[in-house]
């Protein structure tokens, strides 16, 4: 602990605010504003991290200093002042939490109700104090049973900060192996200051018996704005992982930059599903989350990685879950629904990098734009020289609601191997008045009719989601489009 005190002291001295009486404030729950090597040291010390990780973070930070924010995406926002935010805040203390649902924003509760989320669960989601996660489930034992079951199979599933303490060799070996610290501006930033996230390891030949979900550990500290996830599926194993939830999430921090790394070894399969519903801001886009995410998976021989995402939240989404198809006969898939309404902007898509022979990839992207929003699909398919017999199929469909929104498709295709095949199809359509009228003539109110039509449009993607998630996602589609007709 001595090292911790020392670091905190240094940080404290650097700023006026914490000059006095700082040394004793070991429980201080915020790093001072701004980003510097000291902030990085502070975070690492707070988390009691080993020396190698601190070095890793510092290297990332130093690299970040040399980088500039990417500007190629079709999104616009005022410049972000990186020195004007906080990079570490401890989980909220009880005093800051609402005492009961009565103290929670009624608009939020309204949405929970529409999603059909039970009261107990609403309390957990809204961060009401003294509600244990166990309360969400029918009995206290569910979460425990869950843990026991996983341990029996040798599966490790915990917060990444825990994994750093308990399984440092695994974390050290794989973290940064797919998304290097210097990969891009936001990934570098994340590497320097990430606070928490999930870690998962599936041993050889094990088929994970249940969907793993961040949900099962939402009580394990708020993951915050710089989330880091690492999933390693050893040879011949299988795991399905769910991230996020359909309930709207709010955060006082506007800037979010997560990193997710997946490693699928020979014959392994990882299915990664996301429902992202961060606060999109008000009708004018004020106050919404900026979400800059780097997600990438590495496939060894005959491995398969499948990304499925439903993106409905955030003011800005910048996100390209990708697959590096390194091993021969490996498979990458990307299924995506991106809905934007009001002033939301989404620039999302995927990268499929074919390196091995007979690698295959499939991309199904559905973009729905309503209000004054802008949605862009940006996809890259690259066939390397050695990718004999590789195949890609891409289908991008855009649906427009109203005439003030926009949808754009930007495919990059690059092939260095003549035997590789790339197929690309794109369509743009509008929700027709004929369709809406037809539904209404059968008694279905206009907004519900729109939800029905849009869900039909997204069906190919939604059916890739695990069952219960799919049902919730369908409702979410409706909620995201509220106010876009009539």
């Amino acid at each position: 602990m001595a090292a911790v005190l020392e670091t905190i002291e240094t940080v404290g001295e650097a700023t006026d605010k914490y000059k006095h009486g700082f040394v004793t404030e070991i429980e201080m729950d915020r790093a001072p504003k701004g980003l510097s090597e000291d902030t990085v040291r502070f975070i690492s010390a707070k988390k009691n991290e080993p020396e190698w990780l601190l070095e890793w973070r510092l290297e990332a930070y130093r690299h970040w200093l040399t980088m500039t924010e990417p500007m190629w995406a079709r999104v616009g926002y005022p410049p972000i002042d990186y020195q004007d935010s906080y990079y570490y805040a401890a989980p909220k203390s009880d005093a800051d939490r609402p005492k009961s649902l009565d103290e929670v924003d009624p608009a939020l509760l309204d949405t929970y109700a529409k999603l059909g989320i039970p009261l107990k669960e609403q309390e957990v989601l809204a961060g009401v104090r003294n509600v244990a996660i166990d309360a969400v489930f029918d009995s206290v034992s569910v979460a425990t049973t869950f843990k026991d079951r996983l341990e029996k199979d040798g599966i490790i599933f915990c917060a990444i900060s825990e994994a750093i303490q308990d399984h440092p060799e695994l974390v050290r070996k794989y973290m940064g192996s797919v998304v290097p610290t210097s990969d891009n501006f936001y990934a570098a930033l994340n590497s320097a200051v990430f606070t928490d996230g999930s870690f998962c390891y599936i041993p050889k030949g094990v088929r994970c018996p249940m969907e793993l979900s961040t949900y099962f550990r939402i009580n394990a500290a708020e993951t915050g704005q710089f989330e880091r996830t690492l999933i390693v599926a050893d040879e011949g194993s299988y795991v399905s992982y769910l991230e996020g939830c359909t309930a709207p999430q709010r955060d006082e921090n506007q800037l979010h930059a997560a990193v997710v790394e997946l490693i699928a070894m020979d014959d392994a399969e990882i299915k990664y599903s996301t429902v992202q519903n961060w606060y999109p801001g008000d009708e004018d886009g004020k106050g919404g989350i900026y979400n800059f995410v780097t997600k990438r998976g590495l496939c060894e021989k005959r491995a398969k990685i499948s990304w499925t995402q439903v993106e409905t939240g955030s003011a800005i989404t910048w996100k390209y879950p990708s697959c590096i198809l390194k091993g021969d006969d490996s498979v990458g898939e990307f299924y995506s629904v991106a809905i934007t309404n009001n002033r939301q902007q989404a620039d999302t898509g995927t990268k499929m990098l074919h390196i091995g022979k007979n690698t295959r990839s499939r991309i199904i992207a559905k973009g729905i734009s309503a209000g004054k929003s802008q949605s862009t699909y940006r996809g890259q398919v690259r066939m390397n020289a050695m990718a004999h017999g590789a195949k890609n199929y891409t289908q991008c469909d855009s649906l427009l609601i109203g005439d003030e929104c926009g949808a754009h498709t930007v495919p990059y295709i690059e092939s260095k191997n003549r035997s590789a095949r790339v197929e690309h199809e794109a369509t743009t359509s509008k929700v027709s008045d004929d369709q809406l009228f037809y539904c209404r003539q059968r008694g279905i109110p206009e907004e519900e009719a729109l939800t029905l039509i849009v869900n039909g449009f997204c069906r190919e993607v939604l059916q890739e989601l695990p069952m219960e998630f799919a049902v919730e996602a369908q409702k979410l589609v409706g909620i995201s489009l509220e106010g876009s007709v009539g």
Partner: protein
Amino acid sequence: MNILSIKDLHATVDGKEILKGINLEMGAGEVHAIMGPNGSGKSTLSYVLSGRDGYEVSKGEVLYKGENLMEMLPEERAQAGVFLAFQYPVEIPGVPTVTFLKQAMNSVRKARGEKELDAFEFKKIMDARLKELSIVNDMVRRALNTGFSGGEKKRMEVLQMAMLEPSLAILDETDSGLDIDALKTVADGVNALRAEDRSMLVITHYQRLLDYIVPDHVHVLSAGRIILSGDKSLALELEEKGYADIVAAAA
């Protein structure tokens, strides 16, 4: 009180007057047939009655069960029991027919303050109707009308009518595109739905349909007006002579 009472109805589309003073009274349980040349305004009348956007009523009134129908939203009219079997049913990709049917039925029930059907109750009703109309189960699992043949689409309209049990059913050329066997099945289906509290407005070009669905009244619509009304023998006469003479005689 009549189910439907139309008085001097004028309606415009894109500023062009299409309906030019329609008068029509329909009693409960009655079946009325409307015939008339292409472009005379038959579908327009069906859209005005069901509340489609862009069809402006410039004059006249329409009472449905004594209420001003024109003040209601399209879905409110449907919930109140007005059903339109479309001349050209619309495709809705990705939405399974069964999902659509269930949502339609439950929307109507909800609006009427009735209990919504659960999956089991719904399936029971649907299966019975499918059997009556000789529709194979596979059909309803496919996306609504998507890639259906012309005849299949028409059958699906009748299935929806059978499930929603409307008080006023408007069938816009439901017989067009049906083969002879299908015509018989559909007509049987429609006849089975004839009831004292259900009125039907059957738009058709062919007397053949009216052999199966025998109407109480037949009207001839021409250039936005009903120029002639009669009983079922009028349909026979039309078939023989064509519209030209009759239109000329009425003018």
